[in-house]
Structures are given as C-alpha cells and as structure tokens.
C-alpha cells in the first residue's frame, strides 16, 4: 500500500537515441565562463573539442550507453564543493553564513543537460506535473505565479470575498528527497525501465571533497537527495513533488482552496466573505498538506510558515491563526504579516505594491551609485559600455515584477516617478552631462527610452507571449473560454464572468485577455515533431543540407559565389529525379498589405 496508489500509472514512453543536435543545443546553452570540476576540463575546452564531428559522435554514444546500460560512471559523480562565505554576516561561526558551490565534471554535466531537456519536454507534454506547480518547469516562471495570485485576489474582491494565504516552506528540500520514492514516482510517470535503472545508479555513491580557502578535504560520501549542482536536480525535484500536488487536489476538493508551488515554496489560498471562515479552511488544508508531505518523506518547517490577508476594506481586522503544530499551538497564534515576501515580490494587504517598487528602485539606484566607481566623465568606461551595463544589469532589477502593478488603468504614478528618478541618475552617469540638465534631454542623448514607454512596450509584448504557453499552463486556466485549451477552468476564470462583472475586475490578466484576439497565429509548444530526439534534424541530419555562404560584402566574394552557383545549377539541371525551386518573400511597406512568399518550382533531368 503506497501513497501513490490513487494516481494512475502512465503508459511507458519510448526513449529515442540521442542525436548530435541535442548535444550541440545543450552545449550552446552553457556559459563558457563557469568553473570546471575535478578534471579541470572547462566549457571552453569542451566547445573546442566538440567542433570535431567524431568527438560529438563519441559523446553521443557514451550518453546512449549510460542510459541503456543503466549506469552513471563514477568519474561524473565526483565533485568538489567550494565553501564561499556570504558577505556581510556578523559572525562566521554558523554553517548558514557560508554558501557551498558544487562543481561537477563538465562532460557529465553536458549529458545531464541533454537528459534534463528531454525530461522537461515530457513533463509538459504528458502533464506529469500539476499545472499549479511553477518551479523547475519550462515556460512556468515566478511572474506567472505572481500574476495568477494577484488575479485571484482581485477577482475575489470584485465578488466581495477576502483572501487569506498560508505560505509554507519545506525543510531541507533537496537533500531530503528519498531515492526509493523518487524511483517509484518515475515508474508511475511512465519512464521506461532502463531510465529508472539509470537514475538508481545516478543517485548513489556520489563523493565530494570540500574546498575552503587553501584547505582541501578528502572525498566524502554525499548521496543524500538529488545531486546538487547538476541540471537534473530541479527536474527531478519537480517530478518528486508532483504527486503531492495531484493528491492534494484530489483529497481537498471540498475545501475549495488553490495551491501554488514554486520548487519548495508553497502557498495555499482560501477565499470567502469572512476572514474567520478562511482561517478554518486554511487550517484544514494545512493538515491535509502536512499529511501528504509526511507520506512522501518531506517535513514542513512550521516556524517558517507565514500567514497573510488580502483585504481592501478599511477595517484592519486580522484574526491570528492557530495551526496546531509547534510553535503555533495553544495561545501562540500565527499573526498575519504586514508585508509578505513571496518569490521576490512584496505583497501588501491592498495590492498597491508601493513597497515592492520602492524596494526594487532603491536596489537599482544603489547599483547605479556603485557603478560610478567604474567611470566618470573624465576617465573609466566609455559611454557606450556604461549604457550597456545599465540596460543589462540595472533595468531588469528595477522592473522585476512590473506586470503585477503596471497594467492598463493602473494608478502607478508614484511608482513610475521612482523609476524615472533612478533612470535620470543613470543617464547623468552615462552621458556625463551637467546635473541640472533636463531628464528628457539626457534620456534622448543616452538612447534610454522613458521608463513608462519601456514598461508599455514590454507589457504589450508580454501580453502576446501568453499565446505561446502550453495547453495546461496555470495562466490559461484563468483566461476566457477561447484560451483555455486543455486547462481546467478555475472558478475565478474570465470565462465564468458576466460582461458586467468583467468591467469590475482590473488587472494584468484582464488586459492579456483583451489583447490576445489581435494575434491570429496559433502555437504548439509541445508538438510531437518538436520532441528532443524525434525532431527532423535529429532523425535525418545528413539528408537536410545547408549551403551557407554567410554575408558577402566584397565584390570578389560575390563574384566567386556567382560562379559557384552556376556550377551547382548546371549540375542540378542535368541530374535525374531532381526538383529545384527558388523562393523569396516580400513585406510591402504599405501597412494594409499582407507579407508575401513566392516560389517557382522546376523539374530537372
């Protein structure tokens, strides 16, 4: 009898052999500058070696053999853990003031990455994870989780309901994953038996040696949980926790709560007209969750559980909650927070996000100030590089989570003025202009688009990104009927609203729903043709050929290319069973015309 019994066992999936394309894809996504493991082979070395086709074939064969034999070589399991002290800690006597970084051998990491890409694809395609699980799954980001939460709260308000949240944290998540349980879950989720055997070998007998300053320890056994530092650990942990999400939604239907999980940060949400009722619901939901987590061998850290209330009425009634577990038993009740930090967003009771914007604009401003040491108007970095630094390192920090507070009809003048001040400071630093110059002039000279237009542009583009999401993405479940696709409609979804009610709800999700019909294209993020290992270029790499000449700017090169073309064309025209086509496209300047593609097709021989 196992906790997994209520879940269906999926049919076994095939595992096609790895292809050279998958290897090069995985390789190109690696940063060349990350540190190597014990064997000192860096990514730069690996990239140079894998220029040669034969070595690519060798590695692909190695990867295939690992999976089919069900063995992960010992060389790939040895790692070195570098202990780095966290800056600015008052004391370095506790382990928590250090951050260990695990460095694995790069060849092993490359193969892990290829496997991880495949698992990611199957995870979405076959719905191995619950839609509301957003960490470690492709296409599901923190911003989506934030949008989902805020939309539910705002819709609840329009219905006259108040929302209470309970955020919980899993203690020591990665190290406490149970190996036998993980393998049982993988079997249940339809991974073939040799993949299961591979992971059984992958998880055990891992050794790491610790490196701290000049001290280096001997190898110590480290096979708790999933291997740290590898590309597979986020995927495996997402797969591990998936049954909890699914079982919770089966067992707690009557509670009518929403559960959202980001890796090991979870939230349960209850909505009703009274906060006292919410409190009772949350208490029950927490008990169900705890039971499920214990069943798969995970422990909740009760002291880190947080409680938060979203209420836009003027009353500041906020009843504390008694969870029934230490330290919140008897008279020690859990009081709601003033601000709630979740996934890097600062939520406040009325969803104004003043605190959030203040925090991030101050953070950005302090990095602008710190950057001043890199250059001034007389020495240091040239303006072009200063601008690049600002655009790539400061602006993304300042605008993190902007979708939560920036939408059509939002009142965000104060937030925008904070960001504007920050950009002005950066503009002055980039141009070296006089400090009394007007903001507009500086922005134009430095080529920085005004902040509100930047946000408008990003928000407009992000609206259409929703069309590319997979069929069961959490955002799909709260949109209108046309955009649900495979997702189960949420009770707060736009499809469940009347026209009059829709006007009462504001927020980013409503904006997305208004704009999506402008796009007429449809997408298939997990089409079976796009499955890694089964793509056209995976299966027939030698039969699809590209004759590339790059961008030829010089007259001589152009003439040489023309001569080549005549030779090719002459041969093509004379050979049997051959078809040749020439294609071109044109996009008229006139905005009222369609773009066109044209081709002419001839048979030769």
């Amino acid at each position: 009898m196992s906790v997994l019994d209520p879940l269906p066992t999926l049919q076994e999936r095939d595992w096609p052999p790895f292809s050279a394309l998958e290897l090069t894809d995985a390789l190109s996504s690696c940063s060349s500058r990350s540190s190597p493991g014990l064997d000192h082979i860096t990514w730069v070395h690996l990239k140079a070696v894998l220029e040669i086709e034969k070595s690519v074939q060798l590695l692909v064969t190695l990867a295939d053999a690992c999976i089919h034999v069900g063995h992960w070589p010992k060389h790939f399991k040895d790692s070195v853990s570098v202990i780095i002290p966290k800056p600015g800690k008052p004391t370095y006597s506790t382990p928590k003031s250090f951050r260990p970084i695990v460095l694995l051998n790069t060849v092993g990491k490359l193969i892990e990455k290829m496997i991880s890409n495949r698992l990611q694809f199957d995870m979405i395609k076959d719905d191995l994870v619950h839609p509301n699980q957003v960490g470690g799954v492709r296409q599901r980001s923190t911003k989506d989780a934030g949008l989902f939460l805020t939309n539910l709260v705002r819709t609840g308000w329009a219905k006259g309901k108040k929302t209470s949240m309970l955020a919980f944290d899993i203690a020591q998540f990665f190290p406490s994953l149970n190996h036998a349980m993980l393998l049982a879950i993988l079997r249940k989720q339809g991974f073939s038996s040799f993949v299961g055997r591979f992971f059984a070998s992958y998880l055990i007998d891992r050794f790491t040696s610790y490196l701290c300053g000049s001290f280096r320890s001997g190898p110590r056994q480290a096979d708790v949980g999933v291997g740290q530092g590898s590309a597979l650990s986020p995927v495996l942990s997402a797969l591990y926790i998936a049954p909890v999400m699914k079982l919770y939604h089966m067992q707690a239907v009557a509670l009518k709560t929403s559960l959202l999980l980001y890796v090991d940060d979870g939230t349960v949400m209850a909505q009703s007209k009274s906060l006292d009722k919410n409190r009772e619901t949350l208490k029950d939901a927490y008990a169900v969750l705890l039971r499920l987590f214990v069943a798969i061998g995970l422990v909740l850290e009760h002291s880190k559980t947080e409680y938060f209330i979203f209420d836009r009425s003027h009353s500041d009634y906020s009843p504390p909650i008694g969870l029934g577990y230490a330290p919140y038993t008897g008279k020690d009740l859990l009081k709601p927070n003033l601000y709630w930090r979740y996934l890097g967003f600062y939520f406040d009771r009325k969803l104004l996000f003043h605190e959030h914007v203040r925090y991030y604009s101050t953070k950005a401003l302090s990095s602008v100030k710190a950057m001043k040491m890199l250059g001034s108007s007389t020495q240091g970095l040239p303006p072009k590089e200063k601008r690049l630094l600002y655009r790539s390192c400061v602006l993304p920090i300042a605008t993190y989570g902007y979708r939560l507070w920036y939408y059509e009809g939002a009142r965000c003048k104060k937030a925008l003025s904070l960001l504007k001040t920050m950009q002005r400071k950066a503009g002055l630093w980039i141009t070296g202009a006089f400090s009394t110059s007007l903001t507009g002039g500086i922005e134009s000279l430095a080529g920085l688009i005004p902040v509100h237009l930047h946000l408008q542009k990003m928000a407009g583009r992000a609206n259409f990104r929703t069309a590319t999401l997979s069929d069961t993405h959490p955002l799909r479940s709260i949109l209108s009927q046309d955009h649900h696709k495979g997702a189960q409609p949420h009770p707060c979804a736009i499809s469940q609203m009347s026209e009059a009610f829709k006007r009462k709800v504001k927020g980013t999700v409503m904006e997305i729903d208004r704009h999506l019909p402008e796009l007429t294209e449809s997408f298939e993020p997990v089409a079976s043709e796009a499955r890694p290992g089964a793509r056209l270029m995976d299966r027939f790499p030698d039969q699809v050929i590209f004759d590339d000449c790059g961008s030829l700017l010089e007259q001589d090169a152009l003439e040489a290319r023309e001569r080549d073309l005549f030779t090719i064309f002459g041969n093509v025209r004379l050979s049997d069973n051959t078809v040749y086509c020439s294609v071109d496209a044109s996009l008229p300047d006139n905005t009222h015309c369609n773009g066109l593609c044209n081709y002419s097709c001839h048979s030769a021989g």
Partner: protein
Amino acid sequence: MGSAITLATQQDNCEKIYIFTDSIASARRAVDPSLHSGQGHSLAVCQTLAAWLAEDSSCTITFIQVPSKLEWSIHKEAHDYAKDLISPAGPRPAMSLDSVQKAVTKCAQESWTRMFENLSYKGRNFLHLERLDGDALKPTYINGGVWLSPVGSNLSVAVRLFRYSQPRPNWIILRTFQHS
C-alpha cells in the same frame, strides 16, 4: 517555402530537392519545429519532409543561399513575382507573433518621438541637429541611440558632445556672471 517543399515532395520519383533562397536563416527556421513565430509553417514542413526522407535514405534536400545582391537568374524570377504581386489585407488580417510585437514596439517608439518634439521634455536649450538630408535627429534606443552610437566609444568626445547638446540652463550662467 513550405508549399514549395510540399509541391516538390509530391513529384514522382523525386530524390533530390534543391531550394535556392536568399535567407538561409529562414531556411533553418523552416526545419526547426520549436516555438517561434511562424511555427505552424515549420511544423508542416517537418511533417512532410519527415515522411519523404524516411521513405528512402538516398533522398536529400539542399538549401542553397543566393545573395539577393547578385540578382541571380531563377532567384530573380521568384523575387520579381513576390514583389509585383500585391495582396491587400482584408478586414481581419492574419497577424503573426512577430508582427503584433513589432507593432507594439513601433507604437512605443513613436510616442517617444512625439514626446521629444515637446520643448518641455528635451529642454529649451537642447541643441537642434539635423541629418545630412535635412531631417531632424529623432531619439531611438536601437544600437545605443542616435547620439551615442557614433561617439560612444570615445569618452572625451562623447562628453563634450553631450554637454554641448544639453548646456546649462541660462539662469545658472547668469548667476555665475553676477558672482564674478
């Protein structure tokens, strides 16, 4: 490109396909089924080609790049056809992801240009510069902007240009005069 490939694969006894194109990037995209604007076409191409290539291992398809500058025989033909044919968009034109996103970007850029025409935005003393063809310079964020891209790698020249374009407001200069 999709329909050309489909038509070619339907020919009897066809073993080799040669496609002449001026954009090798779009050829690569045509056989890439992952998520991108125009994915539907790529999926169709992949389906057709996978069936055709699987039949016989001697079948090949070759994409050959023809620089459009050459205006080379049969590619020129296709180019002229494409250019001459005008297809008016109906009341509900087909919009791809790239085109809607481009429209959003263009809208933001135009709002900025309009803001820039306002003196209270750029400042009364902002140095009015023109292009060689007589158009006034307009701000842009592409490639570092109009002012930054030509001088951006030289610090002293850049700072001199920026200070000259955006001088101190008059009252400061007046006050300095009064003090001296």
